[in-house]
């Protein structure tokens, strides 16, 4: 009897844990959405801010976030995939590989604001890119590199060894095997990782604080060397700067809502792809 009672209490406690977690997280989505959705209109999505950030829309911030994300992915993707290919396909089991693995793990744990400082010192100052899309997206790409590497590695490891062996047995070289067999098979997995990292980049604020972001700018960025507005930074700036906190809060709700929808949608799609893929692989 006692044994059963303890089990009941224990299980209820664990149920309580997950219930609180889910309720809390859904509450965040709920509160942001309820007030955010009221602000959303066609004008809000397509117009530039007016009257000292109190009216108009946030189109430049949306466009800015898209630019930063796009460029960061363009930098990080080839590098991350190559790194994963080396580690999974070529790597001799040696201490060098271990060093690379440890540095990837540690890079993944570096606080995001440190990437911002690195970007400021290296891209903005040393390479003289200035506060620009280029400097910001390079900083973001270093941040997201470990994410891409580990998800690509996972995808490559899921490719059955027999496929590689069959290809090599037919006389294909290592590179031909990778190009024609391994990569196509691993593609859905790599895609999932890429989509997840898009979500991650779009929401990051700290790395672009001093490398790319501007609170307000006239019109859209003209080249990769101009500053940009970005959604996450815009939320922060609306809440901490400016002269009309009341009306700015509403706009910040709208921005948070857009960002939330964007990020949740992206990770939802990625997770759906991955689940399908897993089901497919497990028969």
């Amino acid at each position: 009897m006692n044994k059963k009672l303890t089990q009941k209490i224990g299980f209820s406690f664990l149920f309580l844990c997950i219930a609180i977690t889910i309720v809390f997280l859904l509450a965040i989505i709920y509160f942001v959405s309820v007030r955010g959705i009221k602000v959303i209109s066609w004008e809000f999505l397509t117009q530039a801010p007016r009257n000292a950030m109190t009216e108009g829309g946030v189109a430049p911030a949306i466009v800015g976030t898209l630019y930063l994300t796009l460029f960061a992915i363009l930098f990080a993707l080839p590098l991350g995939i190559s790194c994963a290919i080396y580690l999974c396909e070529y790597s001799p089991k040696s201490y060098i590989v271990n060093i690379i693995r440890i540095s990837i793990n540690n890079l993944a744990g570096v606080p995001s604001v440190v990437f911002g400082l690195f970007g400021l010192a290296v891209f903005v100052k040393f390479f003289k890119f200035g506060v620009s899309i280029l400097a910001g997206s390079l900083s973001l790409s270093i941040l997201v590199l470990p994410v891409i590497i580990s998800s690509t590695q996972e995808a490559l490891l899921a490719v059955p060894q027999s496929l590689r062996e069959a290809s090599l047995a037919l006389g294909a070289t290592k590179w031909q095997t990778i190009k024609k067999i391994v990569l196509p098979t691993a593609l859905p997995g790599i895609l999932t990782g890429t989509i997840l990292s898009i979500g991650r980049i779009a929401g990051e604020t700290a790395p672009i604080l001093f490398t790319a972001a501007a609170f307000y700018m006239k019109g859209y960025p003209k080249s990769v060397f101009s500053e940009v507005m970005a959604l996450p930074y815009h939320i922060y700036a609306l809440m901490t700067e400016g002269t009309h906190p009341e009306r700015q809060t509403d706009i910040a709700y709208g921005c948070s809502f857009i960002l939330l929808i964007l990020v949740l949608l992206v990770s939802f799609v990625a997770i759906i792809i991955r689940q399908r893929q897993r089901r497919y692989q497990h028969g």
Partner: protein
Amino acid sequence: MFRTKEKLYKWIFAILAFASLVFLVGIIIVLFKEALPIFKNIKALDFIFGKFWYPTYEPPEFGILPLVLASIWVSIGAMFVCIPLGVGSALYINEIASYRQKAILKPLIEVLASIPSIVYGFFGMVVLAPFLQNFLHLSIGLCLFTASLTLGIMATPTVCSIAEDALSYVPRSFREASFAVGANRWQTLTRVIIPAAGSGISTAIILGMSRAIGETMTVLMVAGGAAVIPKSIFDPVRPMTAAIASEMGEAPMGSLHYNSLFAIALILFLITFIFNIIAEIISRRFRIKLGLSG
């Protein structure tokens, strides 16, 4: 002809593979280089244990103890939230949830883990802080307590997914053996599975802690921003990350203030670096213990 091409590809990949190492070393070099001037002017111990952070006063004071303590307190507070919630949720998903519940809960937690930190910060600022201020009759809503709570909620999905991973590595045979000797599910959970996955779970906790201490936007918006040593958990504070993010914009390049912010980043980097190394060592032991390949 084929052979040279093959070798070329191998070398290209090998060189690109070192990118992470290059960036990591680059970050360390940059932080050291930019932080160095401050240590020429102020002794390292005075910098870390100095009680006053007045970088813009005349003469300026560069003591980061208030910032360090703020970071530590906020992270410890967050741990009180995210360890029970995260590990508890992981245990529920792995041990109790039916197949169908699991199929919903796992992806749900993963999707929720992708909510950007700025949204948590915004939520903390406009919903949680006013609510707590009314509810607990606080003088200031943006304070250490609110920051800990927000950060804790934010780290929960991370802790949960990593702990859940660790639990899923525990071999079925452990469970079956325990049931076979007459233990019920709860006894199996507390005496077999948790000890077996213990080091995996502690890896989750350490990585959660590392994430909490390095988190920037949330604490920047919610912690209140006062750079003084807190006397109670309802005082506003300024953690290290918040200090860097909010002051870097005003610090003139090459000034001592600028250098001191890099020095803070260096200390922050070293703390998270140590946490990650510990997590790495523990998780490797864990894999060896369960007979998994490293």
